[in-house]
């Protein structure tokens, strides 16, 4: 029994309810936004390394925001803000979860589609609408939102405080509200599908780690995104309807505001109650993808499956009680700071377990260096490097002096940005044959990987030194302070690697689009993997399997199992007589 049906161009490519097509829609929209976010970072990196210098390309792209080819300070802040917003929400939340949750859940658990195909379609189109509104905000007269991606009021509430807090911020808030609706529709669907539509034999203990990670991500999203929605709605009220949730005792540009009794700190609490789980909404799917990729390409079972699941659950739980570590310097009660330091540093324990288990998985493996595997190993490296500096930032006493400096920028770009984007690349390379029925070019993948790996560390590692020199983030230039004069050297190094890294990404984009249309046809199971998606036919059909859905008899990690005929045993193969389940 298959659910495949006749499809018109519109129901196949645009208003599709097939999870595989929706996944591709998320992926391509995410990639498009990633390119925009990356170009923005290239533009402000130019300014940072060459303060005051004129670049024709800046004037060409930004017009009045770069008079004479010199970036305007308010546009600098707008670029930083939009870069953060796009990368955090559009690329690493929607682009990553939207793509792989949609694509992998039904295929890996053995379901015909999501629990509600219609809600799933709606989830994408809310996201699409959010994207349109966000891009629209780039073109308004007063410029896009520029209060930082964390949009702390009063800066974000008062158009008098910064031009970007005018129409740009209104559109930003509208866009994020639409985004959250889309994200919630998606997440609910993911949870329901995983809990209810698993095929016969697919017990929770036999779920691939990707699905575990996606399930926890979706739970985090459902519990935390509504809080941001509430925070955004209150901010809209303050901005447009004269309320004082976040505003009190303010004089701006000589104008005395009537607002009294509100607290900007309330916004920070609401924001980070989403904001910190958000870090793990970004990170967990990447860790899930990589658990799969490392096991497949080491030709070994993932080491300590139960501990891996336990660590994921622990991280997800802890992520809800650590948000205050973003606010150590807000003047909150020092005792509260102690509590958040304690809970924050605890996260290092499940994180350490994951790292050790990845190392143990590689140990005595038979490693196949597909491009996906290269990115997976690099992810473990960035997770180590970035995670370690978290011990400094999570410690309130040390945070006093590195809070809001470039040390933070270096830390989160490595531990969250790079780790998640490596996970995303690993996922794309690994599942591309399943998505498009064709192969991406391996050698271009190798070049893309090494270029990215070297440039990315070249960009973000030096930032720790800027931070330890005391340089605050979001400074248009560091030339206003003699104490930072020498740091332009470091900034030049960073900008060099940033631009080189951006060019390397073009190889990936080329490889991706070329391979969709012209890549060599993929085999049924090119990586010789155990999970169910590789038992589905290469040709895309709505309903995934033409006949019956395969049943599951074993966990997904029977690689190089002694006594097996090959070095992999797909989940739908019954246990042999006398064979014990791992």
């Amino acid at each position, binding site marked *: 029994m298959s659910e495949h049906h006749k499809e018109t161009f519109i129901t196949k490519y645009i208003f599709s309810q097939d999870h595989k097509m929706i996944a591709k829609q998320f992926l391509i929209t995410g990639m498009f936004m990633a390119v925009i976010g990356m170009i923005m970072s290239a533009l402000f990196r130019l300014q940072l390394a060459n303060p005051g210098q004129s670049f024709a390309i800046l004037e060409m792209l930004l017009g009045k925001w770069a008079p004479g080819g010199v970036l305007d*300070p308010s546009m600098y*802040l707008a670029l930083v803000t939009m870069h953060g917003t796009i990368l955090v929400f559009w690329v690493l939340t929607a682009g990553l979860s939207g793509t792989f949750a949609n694509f992998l859940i039904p295929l890996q658990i053995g379901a015909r589609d999501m629990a509600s195909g219609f809600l799933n379609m709606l989830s994408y189109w809310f996201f699409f609408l959010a994207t349109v509104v966000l891009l629209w905000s780039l073109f308004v007269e007063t410029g896009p939102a520029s209060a930082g991606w964390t949009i*702390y009021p*009063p*800066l974000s509430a008062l158009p008098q*405080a910064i031009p970007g807090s005018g129409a740009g911020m209104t559109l930003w808030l509208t866009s994020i509200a639409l985004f959250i609706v889309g994200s919630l529709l998606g997440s609910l669907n993911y949870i329901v599908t995983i809990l209810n539509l698993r095929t016969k034999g697919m017990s929770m203990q036999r779920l691939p780690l990707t699905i575990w990670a996606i399930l926890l991500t979706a739970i985090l999203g459902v519990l935390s995104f509504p809080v941001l929605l509430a925070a955004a709605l209150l901010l809209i009220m303050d901005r447009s309807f004269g309320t004082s949730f976040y*505003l*009190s*005792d*303010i004089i701006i540009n000589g104008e005395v505001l009537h607002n009294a009794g*509100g607290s*900007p700190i309330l916004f920070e609490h609401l924001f980070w109650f989403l904001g910190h789980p958000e870090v793990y909404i970004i990170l967990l799917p990447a860790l899930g993808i990589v658990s799969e990729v490392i096991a497949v390409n080491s030709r070994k*079972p993932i*080491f300590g499956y*139960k*501990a891996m699941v336990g660590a994921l659950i622990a991280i997800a739980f802890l992520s809800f009680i650590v948000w205050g570590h973003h606010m150590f*310097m*807000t*003047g909150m009660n*020092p005792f509260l700071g*102690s509590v958040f*330091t*304690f809970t924050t*540093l605890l996260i290092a*324990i499940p994180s350490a377990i994951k790292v050790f*288990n990845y*190392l143990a998985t*590689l140990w*005595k*493996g038979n*490693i*196949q*260096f597909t491009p996906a595997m290269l990115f997976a*190993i690099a992810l473990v490296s960035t997770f180590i*490097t970035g995670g*370690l500096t978290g*011990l*400094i930032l999570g410690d309130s006493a*040390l945070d006093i*002096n590195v*809070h809001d400096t470039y040390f933070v920028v270096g830390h989160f770009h490595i531990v969250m940005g790079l780790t998640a984007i490596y996970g995303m690349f690993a996922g794309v390379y690994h599942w591309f044959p399943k998505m498009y029925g064709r192969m991406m*070019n*391996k050698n*271009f993948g190798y070049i893309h990987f090494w270029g990215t*790996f*070297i440039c990315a560390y070249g960009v973000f590692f030096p930032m720790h030194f800027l931070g*330890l*020199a005391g340089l*605050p983030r*979001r*400074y*248009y230039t560091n030339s*206003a*302070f003699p*104490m930072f004069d020498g740091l332009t050297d*470091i900034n030049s190094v960073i900008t060099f690697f940033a631009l080189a890294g951006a060019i390397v990404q073009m190889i990936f984009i080329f490889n991706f689009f070329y391979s969709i249309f*012209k890549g060599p046809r993929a085999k049924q199971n090119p990586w010789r993997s155990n999970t169910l998606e590789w038992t589905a036919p290469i040709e895309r059909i709505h309903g995934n399997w033409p006949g019956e859905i395969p049943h599951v008899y074993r966990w997904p*990690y029977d*690689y190089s199992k002694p006594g097996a005929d090959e*070095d992999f045993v797909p989940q739908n193969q019954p246990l042999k007589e006398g064979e014990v389940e791992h």
Partner: protein
Amino acid sequence: MTNILIAIIVFLIIALLVQILRVSELLSEINNTDVNEVTDEDNNTQGKLYLAITFIFLGFVIWQMVYWNHFLLPGASSVHGEIIDGLMSFTMNLILVVFFILTPLLFYYAFKYRGKKTNTAYFYSHNNKLEIIWTIVPTIVLSCVIVYGLQTWNKAMNPDTSQSKVIEIYAKQFDWTARYSGSDNQLGKANYKLVKGRNQLGVDLNDEKSEDDIVVREVHLVKDQSVLLKFRSRDVIHSAYLPHFRVQMNCVPGMVTQFAFTPTQTTAEMKEQEGEDFEFILLCNKICGVLHYNMQMKFVVETQEEYDVWIAEQKTLKNTLTLK
């Protein structure tokens, strides 16, 4: 014209890439191999590249630590700052040790266990003993970090302020102002609705505590004398950041925040150590608007005698406002 040229070049590059892919695919067809199949040769090359990158990456890290070390902030110039520096070097050393063990180990495994058609991986799904060990060891280490961290935090945040000189730091887009509490060591009340003309801090002049308050644009402190900074903001959130003293606190409109510390070095001593250009600087460290990058105020630490001379030259706020 340049745009057309750029467009042509981009087009040519893409065409070149397409041809490269075509050729490699055709070649593999002739040789009857799959161009995208990972061969033993690939595994060998990539494994060795991982070994090479270990040296390049760690070398780069060490190079930065050696050549960029002089950019880092000098040792703390405050009592609690020195304690924080102690915790910082403890944590930093711990991080470096773990980093320099795990990173090479990861890349070495990638190299050592690079795949070969004839090899078989070792089926090893779990080992409870091992997993318990690497749960307990980080737990013990982290307990030490947490205890040490919380002790330091409590010392930094709860100093004895009974003898501290009270100074208000007032933030607005895009400058700082300071108000000394004067001989009574008590700040007069302030209200944002009273901001008018030269009374830029909105000080309530009817409050007798405000009579001796002094408003200045440069802060002078006495070495080894504790100060209690009280922060207010007029418009948006700012953050008062004094990197050399290891002091940071947000300035939030609608509330008063505070931070107490004791400077241990005079500006003159620091100039001897760090060079003639050295100054203690207060920076804004929370995005606050277009000129955020240039919101600063000088702090001067000096001896009691120098301070007495300076403070005697300053007029009280009441004086300034009534003198016209």
